[in-house]
């Protein structure tokens, strides 16, 4: 342990060197804005700025990229809360409660809760990373296809079992999201699949950001204008120093549970290969909702619903670095690019990296701590700017949101087909929203679909079509059973109410 602390202090010292510190501050600020721009996420920032890093030594280069990664994780929440459009895929779940809070004129509470939860999530994951990197990497490897599918099932189950919404509509929403995720090519046979009306734009699939921006940037916006008759209260947002302190207290009092769940669950989902921060944040939201005293408050503007996904996406972004550094397996698209960068710099990721390139690894870990701290400070410093933006009259804010949605829809895939598709999704979402169809599950499903389907198919291939594989394995079994119980929970509730009412009626007879 003493050895680890010694190495960590060396790493912190390295990342506090003037050049590296400057790179961290620039990286975090850039990341914050890239993350806040709908359609662009950390992956774009890291990919675009990768060539710039060849001008500095490898340790400084990865510190810069890690700072962008961190900044983007914080930044995604900003547009999710203030504009109601997910700034990045990792911030989709933040929209579920961040937007209702902003509409109530409580954007500052949501923004501060997001910043603090992100900081705590980042810190918890940094400590876990520092202390347990090599053993955790082996745990992640014991997660095969059946285990990952069971986890996905659990994520969907949390939305069905405790949603409180209309069950058939929730299930419909999940299934349609999963079907949209299946559009494009069948990954296993390589054959085109669900290419509607032979339109070639469907061949590259339906990008989840196109659905998310359509639903939130257009559908929900139209619904808000319609239901409030244009009298939006989000412009009531205020910002004072006293307000920041009381919001921070309230955010933590009501969001501590979500923060704790997000910090640990996010880290764990982050280290799983092929998972990453987006599923991590969505699952943490689901679990936080499931364990909340009053789950129905989630989705109406509960700070816990902001804290859980925000703590999780920061925690998962550190977690995703773990399999990349120790095993050479990237846990998310961003870490895949970082891995590419490391190979270009002449570093070989894998178990030997910790011993062969100790200075590089500990410099990176040190930079996680420093980036996390600066991301919090820079984010809080910018909150008044975002609140000021919200205070603009709604007739100025609304067209800006529409412009951002259209540009974001295009930037995600750079195809006009997707912009039209986004408008279609937006109008569809508006009509379905009016009829009480919950739309968050569809967004969750389109994100998790590309993980759920291949893991299900490969598991069934492994077991020659026998579905008991999900029940008999030591890790997958319990997760599947919990998921099934959750799915059946509404049915149990109906039976329980009937039994209870018949008991009440019996003595009266």
């Amino acid at each position: 342990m003493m050895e680890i602390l010694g190495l960590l202090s060396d790493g912190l010292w390295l990342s506090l060197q003037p050049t590296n510190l400057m790179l961290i501050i620039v990286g975090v600020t850039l990341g914050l804005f890239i993350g806040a721009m709908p359609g662009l996420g950390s992956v774009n920032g890291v990919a675009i700025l990768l060539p710039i890093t060849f001008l500095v030594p490898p340790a400084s280069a990865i510190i810069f990229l890690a700072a962008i990664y961190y900044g983007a994780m914080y930044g995604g929440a900003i547009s999710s809360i203030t504009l109601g459009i997910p700034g990045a895929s990792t911030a989709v779940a933040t929209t579920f409660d961040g937007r209702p809070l902003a509409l109530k004129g409580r954007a500052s509470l949501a923004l501060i809760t997001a910043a603090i939860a992100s900081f705590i999530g980042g810190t918890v994951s940094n400590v876990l990373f520092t202390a347990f990197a090599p053993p955790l990497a082996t745990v992640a490897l014991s997660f095969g296809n059946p285990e990952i599918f069971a986890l996905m099932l659990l994520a969907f189950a949390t939305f069905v079992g405790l949603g409180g919404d209309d069950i058939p509509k929730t299930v419909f929403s999940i299934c349609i999201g999963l079907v949209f995720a299946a559009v494009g090519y069948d990954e296993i046979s390589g054959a085109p699949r669900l290419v509607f009306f032979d339109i070639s734009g469907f061949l590259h699939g339906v990008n989840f950001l196109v659905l998310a921006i359509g639903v939130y940037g257009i559908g929900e916006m139209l619904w808000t204008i319609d239901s409030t008759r244009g009298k939006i209260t989000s412009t009531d947002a205020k910002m004072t120093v006293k307000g920041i302190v009381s919001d921070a207290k309230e955010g933590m009092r009501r969001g501590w549970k979500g923060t704790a769940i997000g910090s640990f669950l996010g880290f764990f989902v982050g280290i799983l290969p092929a998972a990453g921060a987006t599923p991590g944040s969505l699952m943490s939201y689901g679990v936080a909702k499931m364990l909340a005293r009053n789950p129905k408050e989630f989705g109406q503007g509960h700070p816990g619903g902001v804290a859980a996904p925000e703590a999780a996406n920061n925690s998962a972004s550190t977690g995703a670095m773990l399999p990349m550094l120790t095993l050479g397996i990237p846990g998310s698209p961003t870490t895949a690019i970082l891995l590419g960068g490391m190979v270009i710099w002449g570093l070989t990721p894998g178990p030997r990296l910790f011993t062969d390139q100790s200075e590089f690894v500990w410099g990176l870990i040190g930079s996680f701590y420093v980036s996390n701290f600066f991301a919090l400070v820079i984010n809080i410093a910018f909150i008044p700017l975002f609140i000021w933006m919200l205070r603009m009259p709604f007739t100025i804010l609304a067209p800006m949101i529409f412009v951002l949605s259209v540009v974001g829809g295009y930037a995600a895939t750079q195809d006009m087909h997707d912009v039209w598709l986004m408008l279609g999704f937006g109008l569809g979402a508006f009509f379905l929203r009016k009829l009480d169809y919950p739309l968050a599950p569809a967004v969750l499903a389109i994100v998790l679909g590309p993980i759920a389907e291949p893991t299900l198919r490969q598991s069934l291939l492994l077991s020659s079509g026998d579905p008991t594989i999900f029940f008999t394995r030591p890790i997958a079994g319990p997760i599947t059973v919990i998921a099934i119980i959750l799915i059946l929970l509404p049915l149990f509730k109906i039976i329980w109410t009937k039994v209870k009412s018949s008991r009440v009626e019996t003595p009266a007879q």
Partner: protein
Amino acid sequence: MRRAEIVTAGILALMSVYLMWKSTELNIGYITGEGPGGGAWPFWLSGIMLICTGFIAVNWFRQTSPPSQSTEPFLDGYGKKMLLLVGGGIFGFIALINIISMYGAMFVFLIYYLRFLGRHTWTLTMTIATLVPVVFFFFFEALMRITLPKGMKFLEPVFNYLNTIIY
């Protein structure tokens, strides 16, 4: 609202059937040695969607869901006007992108929304409508190196000139 609930359920049921039919283009059964066919996953999911629409119809008939009890119109006068003006505005914005470029379409859309829907002054309208495309241009083209649609050929000289500034 009540009628809209059942009509929507009907449309969604038809869509589910279409998706089931479309999924059968690939194998929907189990292929020995290959696992479930490519069409199986969307086929069964669409099947579940169809069953859900059945339940939605039952809830409508029993009047247990809020929209099936509501006597309010699905879209009143305000809703229809809003959808036409705002939704139509976005439609026009997207339609203009391939003609006058993303930046040009943004400019026109902002003028339309700010001046004609928002009733803001010409000074404010023109300031925002000009500033937003300029900021977007430098952010996307110069910083992020992502090119947004440039419209038809007649705009080429304008963008060629702008590119000399950023490159």
